[in-house]
């Protein structure tokens, strides 16, 4: 993998293998050594307006434009960024406007995934806001000829102790002569002075959403745009063999059929190839596609079969594999153990299936391309589109629309590249609309996985030795041909950082060559790792005859900081400095205690009902979930209620955290009830929501009670951490309700047997 692959820019890590690029990425996250340049907000007015060169602009009419450089996909980042900036700069909330930033490296990293928008930006946004407040305060003091310390900037006005006031908008010219201090000398607000941060204020796009005015990708109206719907090869690496363009063009409204070149080498974010039907409207393109009569050469992946691959993965994890982490001598203890628990777990491929299928509009010009896309990572669109049309990435203007959900799918901008290529070929603006079938069948899938776990238990149920093997197709396989084994950054997610206290632990990982495009989905490999670990602990509790919650606390052990790098393991800790974001079992224990109180853990349950608990740290955030279910005699499952305690450190919007935690929990139900994505002859067997089931209201608890732990710890992730813990909590509840243990997902008919 060279440092020019798309992957370098896009996915936090796995660039330890390329040290130079890794440093670049890290530097980018933290804006290199130039925090002050970035905080120099008003120092460089642009053209006519007194416009900031980056994140904040104070307009002559007093309105403050705050740029949101991260993509909005429901996590209310547009609101959160405005809250942070407006709070520190003491802006009046009704004078704040949020501008959506285009793709541009000047903002630093824009890849909105990994639950890190706040974590990586809060400090510098605070510094920028505080710089403006400083400039306002000092500009007013200069104007009035008084000491700055006698002036206070508050809510768009600076007030001198004499009672004289000056509005922010009247201080712009003076402020431009003031240079704010270096970031480390800048006085940020104290926590108790926050007025927007750490509140649950309503999000700024709420009214637009409930009135249908929010602009998602397909809502971008370019009057001359033609619509393209694309028939893609059903097998990754497949190519067009034959097709009937005339028949497609005979459909009223169809103007052209254009072949998209097959990708070269590893898939990366390249379009899959296939045939685009270009039409005057969406319905004509849809009809034209049906008339194509296309046949395919399937290529090397035409033999991919999920049932066979499942067997292969389970065989892999039942044999010794490559070492990831080791403490003591787990194997010899297990060999001699009189009481052992052994279990295999399996989780299928899953599709992110955001409500808005991928969509992009592009207009190709000789010297630039304009793109409007629902993208999580506009800088990846710049690179991918640039490569597709043979233009420097700087010439690709990527406008980010609202995203109708994303969950990882939309950081892979193959759809933008399709639109740009077709615009280049037709000379017209093109809107590429993916159908739901396209989304389900041509995705970048959550990796299928198998887990093998063994433990030796002493007479008190204490874990004397623990062995865990994981196998799943690595995300790296999408970027690099021949990448067959999980990378450390994926193992970090719930595997390497296992918190079980035991004298002997061995963790191994096995190979699983990919036959599909593998991508990340909300919480990534935490999903199957947390499912295995948290199910296994629950099984061990039962075997030991102990209460599930007490036992969970017991195996985690006392409050302490765990550093797995002491145990031959590589561990990157979600790119969080381990001194700032240590793996703290005290915080994990705390959410377990908290959620147990909320749920009334231990209460008497009627027949057929059960409570299940699970806890997991991911994206540096600690989550514990209790699920209450009812399983009828006939094996029908109802999820009654859920409780979640989340410790994400400092939070910006308490209500957003609740909403994300509720939604992340419901998303976790997908893992359990969805049929998963399966392949036969290299083809995805599901096509739409009738056979790729996702949770509906009837599958969801009507109440997900969330407690956001008050904390002044550094901010951690919010969008993802509620998801991985949900499926094990649910399956543990099912066991409590009816005694059936779910080791393989989806649940399917297992409760009916």
């Amino acid at each position: 993998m060279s440092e020019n692959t798309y992957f370098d820019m896009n996915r936090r890590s796995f660039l330890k293998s390329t040290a130079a690029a890794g440093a670049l990425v890290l530097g980018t996250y933290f804006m290199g050594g130039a925090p002050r340049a970035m905080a120099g907000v008003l120092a460089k007015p642009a053209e006519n307006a007194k416009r900031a060169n980056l994140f904040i602009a104070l307009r002559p009419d007093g309105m403050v434009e705050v740029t949101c450089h991260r993509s909005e996909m429901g996590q209310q980042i547009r609101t959160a960024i405005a809250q942070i900036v407006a709070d520190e700069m003491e802006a009046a909330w009704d004078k704040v406007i949020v501008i959506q930033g285009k793709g541009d490296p000047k903002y630093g990293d824009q890849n909105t995934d990994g639950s890190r928008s706040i974590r990586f930006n809060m400090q510098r946004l605070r510094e920028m806001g505080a710089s403006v407040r400083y400039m306002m305060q000092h500009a007013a003091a200069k104007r009035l000829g008084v000491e700055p310390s006698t002036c206070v900037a508050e809510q768009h006005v600076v007030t001198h102790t004499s009672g004289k006031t000056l509005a922010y908008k009247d201080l712009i010219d003076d402020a431009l002569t003031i240079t704010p201090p270096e970031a480390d000398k800048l006085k940020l607000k104290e926590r108790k002075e926050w007025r927007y941060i750490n509140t649950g204020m309503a999000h700024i796009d709420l009214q637009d959403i409930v009135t249908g005015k929010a602009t998602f990708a397909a809502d971008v109206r370019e009057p001359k745009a033609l619509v393209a719907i694309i028939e893609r090869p059903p097998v990754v690496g497949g190519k067009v063999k034959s097709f009937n363009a005339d028949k497609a063009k005979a459909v009223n409204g169809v103007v052209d059929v254009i072949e998209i070149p097959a990708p070269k080498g590893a898939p990366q974010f390249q379009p899959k190839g296939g045939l685009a039907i270009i039409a005057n409207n969406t319905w004509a393109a849809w009809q034209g596609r049906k008339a194509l009569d296309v046949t395919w050469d399937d290529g090397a992946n035409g033999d991919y079969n999920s049932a066979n691959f499942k067997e292969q993965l389970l065989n892999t994890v039942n044999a010794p594999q490559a070492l990831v982490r080791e403490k003591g001598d787990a194997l010899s203890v297990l060999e001699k153990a009189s009481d052992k628990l052994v279990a295999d777990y399996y989780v299928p491929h899953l599709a992110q299936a955001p409500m808005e299928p991928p969509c992009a509009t592009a207009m190709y010009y000789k010297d630039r391309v304009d793109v409007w896309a629902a993208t999580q990572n506009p800088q990846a669109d710049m690179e991918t589109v640039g490569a597709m049309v043979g233009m420097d990435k700087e010439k690709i203007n990527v406008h980010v629309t609202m995203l109708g959900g994303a969950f990882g799918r939309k950081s892979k901008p193959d759809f933008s590249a399709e639109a740009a290529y077709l615009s280049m070929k037709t000379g017209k603006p093109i809107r590429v609309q993916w159908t739901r079938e396209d989304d389900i069948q041509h995705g970048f899938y959550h990796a299928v996985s198998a887990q093998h776990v063994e433990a030796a238990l002493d007479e008190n149920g204490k874990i004397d030795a623990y062995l865990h093997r994981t196998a799943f197709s690595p995300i790296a396989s999408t970027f690099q041909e021949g990448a067959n084994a999980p990378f450390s950054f994926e193992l970090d997610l719930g595997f390497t950082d296992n918190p079980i206290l035991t004298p002997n632990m061995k963790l191994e990982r096995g190979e699983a060559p990919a036959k599909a495009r593998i991508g990340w989905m909300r919480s990534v490999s935490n999903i199957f790792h947390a499912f295995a670990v948290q199910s296994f602990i629950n099984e061990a509790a039962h075997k030991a005859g102990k209460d599930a919650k007490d036992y969970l606390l017991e195996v985690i052990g006392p409050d302490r900081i765990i550093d797995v790098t002491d145990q031959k393991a590589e561990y990157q800790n979600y790119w969080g400095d381990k001194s700032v974001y240590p793996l703290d079992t005290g915080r994990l224990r705390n959410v377990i205690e908290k959620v147990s109180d909320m749920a009334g853990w231990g209460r008497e349950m009627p027949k057929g009902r059960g409570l299940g608990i699970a806890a997991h740290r991911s994206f540096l955030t600690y989550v514990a979930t209790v699920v209450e279910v009812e399983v009828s005699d006939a094996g029908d499952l109802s999820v009654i209620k859920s409780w979640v305690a989340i410790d994400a450190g400092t939070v910006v919007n308490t209500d957003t955290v609740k909403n994300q935690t509720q939604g992340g929990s419901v998303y976790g139900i997908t893992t359990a009830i969805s049929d998963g994505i399966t392949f036969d002859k290299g083809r995805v067997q599901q096509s739409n929501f009738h056979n790729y089931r996702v949770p509906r209201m009837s599958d969801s608890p009507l109440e997900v009670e969330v407690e956001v732990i008050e904390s002044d710890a550094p901010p951690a992730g919010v969008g993802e951490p509620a998801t991985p813990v949900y499926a094990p909590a649910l399956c543990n509840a099912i066991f409590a309700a009816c005694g059936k243990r779910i080791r393989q997902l989806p649940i399917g008919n297992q409760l009916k047997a």
Partner: protein
Amino acid sequence: MITFTVNGNKHEFSGDPSTPVLWYLRDELNLTGPKFGCGMAQCGACTVHIDGMAQRSCVLPVSAVQGRKITTIEGLSENGDHPVQKAWVEHKVPQCGFCQCGQIMQAASLLSTNPTPSDEEIVQNMSGNICRCGTYPRIHKAIKSASKSISSNAGVSYFDPTQAGEEA
């Protein structure tokens, strides 16, 4: 020639009569409130009202709306202040928002025929509308709220959206 009204305005259509209403609304009228989510009446993102009743516009051919009244989210209320829209704001239901126009149209239709639905009736009526962000618990609560304000009819004090309140 097929004639009908959309949000109170008369329209005529002479194209392919099998065209789904959704694509007519979006591609011809630029009414983008109704969303495309599945194309087979599985998700409800495209929900509009036909003569006041919720229907999935992605599978409804234009030929079926001769002489009928189509209402989209854009025409649900004058100022975005339908009781259901207000309840959605009160409970801060949306996350990404993509499915919410369809959810709101479905809920408004439910409450127009059954102003005081039971918990179970809400679940039954809303389970055709998917929300991948998982806002179902809030949708359910918001419908209960809207039901209260609709059925009590007068003297309701609505939530003020500028207030920095918090969902319980």
